[in-house]
């Protein structure tokens, strides 16, 4: 099987720790369910990600170097 997370076009996906998550939710003043979603079956997810986890995705950006995005894992 191909491990897509090793591909250069797949950005870094990491599971967000609970305390970091709280900071994120507080910063944007939202509930966990207001985050964009990602499917549990998405091959880019790290193996330990479970439904209900929040994933931090760090993309390279031509204009801002790095763009950070959060997604809620759903089934």
């Amino acid at each position, binding site marked *: 099987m191909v491990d897509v997370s090793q591909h250069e076009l797949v950005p870094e996906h990491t599971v967000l720790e609970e305390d970091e998550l709280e900071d994120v939710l507080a910063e*944007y003043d939202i*509930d966990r369910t207001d985050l964009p979603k990602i499917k549990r079956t998405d091959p880019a997810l790290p193996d330990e990600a479970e439904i209900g986890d929040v994933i931090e995705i760090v993309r390279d950006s031509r204009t*801002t170097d790095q763009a950070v995005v959060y997604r809620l894992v759903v089934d």
Partner: protein
Amino acid sequence: MRNTTPKDIGSINFGLMEPEEYREMSATKIITADTYDDDGFPIDMGLMDPRLGVIDPGLECKTCGQHSGSCPGHFGHIELAAPVIHVGFTKLIRRLLRGTCRECSRLLLTEDEKEEFRQQIDQSRKLGRDVNDVTKAAIRQARKKDRCPHCGEIQYDIEHEKPTTYYEVQQVLTSEYSQRIAAAMQGGEDGERTTPDELAEETEIDLTRINEILSGSFRPRESQRKAIEKALDIDLTEEDTNKLMPSDIRDWFEAIPDEDVEALGIDAERSRPEWMILTVLPVPPVTARPSITLDNGQRSEDDLTHKLVDIIRINQRFMENREAGAPQLIIEDLWELLQYHVTTFMDNEISGTPPARHRSGRPLKTLSQRLKGKEGRFRGSLSGKRVNFSARTVISPDPTLSLNEVGVPDRVAKEMTQTMNVTERNVADARRYVSNGPEAHPGANYVRRPDGRRLKVTEKNCEELAKKIEPGWEVNRHLIDGDIVIFNRQPSLHRMSIMAHEVVVMPYKTFRLNTVVCPPYNADFDGDEMNMHALQNEEARAEARVLMRVQEQILSPRFGENIIGAIQDHISGTYLLTHDNPRFNETQALDLLRATRIDELPEPSGIDDEGEPFWTGRDVFSELLPDDLNLEFTGTVGDDVVIEDGQLLEGTIAEDEVGEFGGKIVDTITKVYGNTRARIFINEVSTLAMRAIMHFGFSIGIDDETIPEEAESRIDETIDDAYDRVEELIEAYERGELESLPGRTIDETLEMKIMQTLSRARDNAGNIAEEHFTEDNPAVVMANSGARGSMLNLTQMAGAVGQQAVRGERINRGYEDRTLSHYKPDDLSAEAHGFVENSYTSGLTPREFFFHAMGGREGLVDTAVRTSKSGYLQRRLINALSELETQYDGTVRDTSDTIVQFEFGEDGTSPVMVSSSEEGDVDVEQIADRILESEFDSEAEKEEFLGSKPEPTNLSEHADSRRIAEDVEVTSDD
């Protein structure tokens, strides 16, 4: 009307209405189908009852007491003789029938299952998903149950016959069971016979019973039936359908407990399922279905009224028949008819139901039809409305206008007005406009007195009225030069399709615009029309001027480079002016620059042999550049373009330099010097280019594409050569000697090789033709500068048109095994499959012409299909994105506050400011240098600001050394 306070909508709930609610909001019960009596007065409790609102001016509403215009209209109601199904809910009704018990009406799910689905619904709601997916799954699971988990009753299948009929389907013993059993016992053609003894043994049924069954005198019970079916491998059942009347369904639904309804995602408080079966029909107010009086004095009623008449008539007949004790069959027929009329009242485009028609045969436009589709209430009246102060006419070019301007015909300017609030400062102007009257151009059409009264300005009263104008009045004056208006060309595919222009009032009937704004509008002058909107308040005018003016749209948000720039002849013009760097004498140079701001020539570029001063084309062009512009890049023609301190030292100015889509110089000026400077530059380049092209003279004719006979025969040779090679390929193919390319069949290989050979032949022909064109050939100038056309066009005009293709292949369609009847079957030659060896100049043969038309047709069809497809796609995309909004915290959210992007565009930058092309990187250092340069007069001040060289102070002799020490130690309190 003005004293209404604005209200804030807290929330909107959608649900079903209770019959009692219909009765409560009703102004009157409607019982007669008649509308007006013989004297023309509306009949009480008829469809035009005055309590339903007023439409005739002067009359007073019997319900609210208001006059037509302010009376909103009031609903009435019809008591239906029997319940009917609401067509809008047929699918939901079907689902509920399938998911609930026919006996106790409870949901066919155990408590545990119900709880699970309830949780899933909550989850779905939170995640913003479609709740329908969960409820569908719940119904699917409930349907699987053969028996009710609560009362144990057997459940039957529900069949739905569209639109509004439901049946219960039961599997019952067929009436011909004895024959079927007997036939099976005989055995098929090769089957074994079964004796009654054997059957009795296998089914464990008494032999006498078996005999009774076989004789047809005893109907087997279910268990016996199943045993026989199993033993003989036959089916003894038939379907028995039992129609569910709306009243049955209503009773069924009434018994569904609230908590079961809620497990299906329905709010039982607001929407009880039985309300989907109508017992009362609300009658829309007359204001929603006004009758109109025709010229001959006859009244013509609205389609809805016609439909309501039908409903009331049938309703009455139903009641009469039922009271008279009519047979069930007649009652059922009438019931169905009532259902049909109520159905078509709500939706007259139901598949499987004939639409209700007008006497003329036109289908009636009922409730659904008023709302649906492009001309419906939503898309036609709410999202898009017809507006005042708008104009539409043909457009034509005017190169003397600035790109910010639009020429407006005087007759348009006299219709479109702007409201002037008269003050002490402008009262003189206001009086002048009014005294000019409505006919003379800078005039006025209306005035409004401080007491709010509006007066029309006429030729007769204008002088009088002008004298009365005082501060505090309002004057609706004509559009004048400098007013800001919005200008638009459909299809409005991007933001630059609607831009603000400044008015220049002109004679004649067309809107005039500078040709450089054609690219953003995608406009040409072959009959295109455009729309203009005059703005009606100060806020709108300010917004348009600041945000929407053409010069603010020079950079496109699509790719972050300029979309406005020199086009077509402008490019040819600058090319001629700068390519060979020609010389101009003083008069000529001044003439070139006459329409620009330059009214004094710079130092001459040199002195010619006769001792006269001259100016070169590049120097003339340089006059338009900002004095401190520095640029160096590879230009359109392939040479280096070098601009130093606003002087074009080297290079040709053409498409990549000043063109519409990312012309380097225009782009740089816009980004570095701002929109205003860019507007001036583009205007001046276009006028300079026009003077230049007129100076040299530029025209194209058929002779420009004609090549010497010698060249033509060389082209013929090349093509003959290619034909020979194609012939060789075909022979090799027929001999079976052709080797196929990897991954291709032999046939495909042959086709590819032939195509290759022929396309090379076309290129060769083009190259031969090209040899005979000089650099100053106008077609070549246009192709090289990027003004219009390409060398391929030239090749096709002078050399050979080449292979015609349909769907990317040589032409293969037409007759059986051949393209035209002129060829032998299976002819694989070049000419039999659409190779055009002639050029457009030499002319095509009839067969070539036909193939060419085939290829051309494909192109036309493709564009037609593409535009409609992409239009629909765009509509969907825009509807999906229209509610997204960038918030003050930088996130992009939809209306329910869920985050779509954590930072606008994931980088928070404007696509207008950042070019999307890779090499268009922002040079931050250069920008910083430039700003510092302009901000500080002396080098010393700049150094001080940057802190690279701290100013010595006189506070202490040790200050300098201390400061150095501070720098080393990073820790500090502030």
